[in-house]
């Protein structure tokens, strides 16, 4: 399964959970394997950017060097990758009953 990172609205998850779980406590229930599975669903260049940043701890400038794109591109890829991943993890947490879906 792959995710269309362009369809993710910024800060959607926060808007969904801010009145029930503003501190993001539901994240703590998500197991490592599920996080890695969710990372795998990201499109290549977004996964690569997120892994270099959040797994390997590289700076934006280092990621720009490694991936041969401008720092601005690193910034926007990281933003979209993190937001898409957050949406995946939120949907998983809802599915598992860790958090209640907000009434639409």
């Amino acid at each position: 399964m792959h995710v269309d990172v362009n369809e993710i609205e910024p800060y959607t998850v926060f808007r969904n959970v801010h009145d029930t779980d503003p501190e993001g406590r539901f994240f703590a229930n998500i197991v490592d394997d599920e996080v890695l599975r969710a990372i795998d669903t990201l499109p290549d260049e977004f996964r690569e950017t997120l892994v270099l940043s959040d797994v390997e701890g590289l700076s934006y400038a280092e990621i720009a060097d490694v991936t041969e794109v401008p720092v601005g591109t690193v910034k926007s890829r990281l933003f979209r990758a993190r937001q898409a991943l957050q949406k995946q993890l939120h949907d998983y947490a809802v599915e598992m009953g860790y958090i209640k879906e907000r009434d639409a």
Partner: protein
Amino acid sequence: MTDEPQAIDCLEVLDRLYGYIDGELTDVRAEEVRRHLVSCAPCLQVSDFETAYVRFLEARTQAQRAPESLRKRVLERILFEDESQPAS
């Protein structure tokens, strides 16, 4: 351009938020975000939530990280690659 912190709005804060959390902003730009957060509860809430999320991601993926020695060698090879060697 001035290096005095200026007032910035919520949209600008949300745009800079990950840079702020990642420590990637200049001192002045970070100070602008900090000053906004002190006086804007909704933005502070988003900031706290996203900070918790980024720390969670880092903590949960730590085990996947290559050992420091290997990591350094790999990165050095990528970053300071000899021009005569084709990139893989």
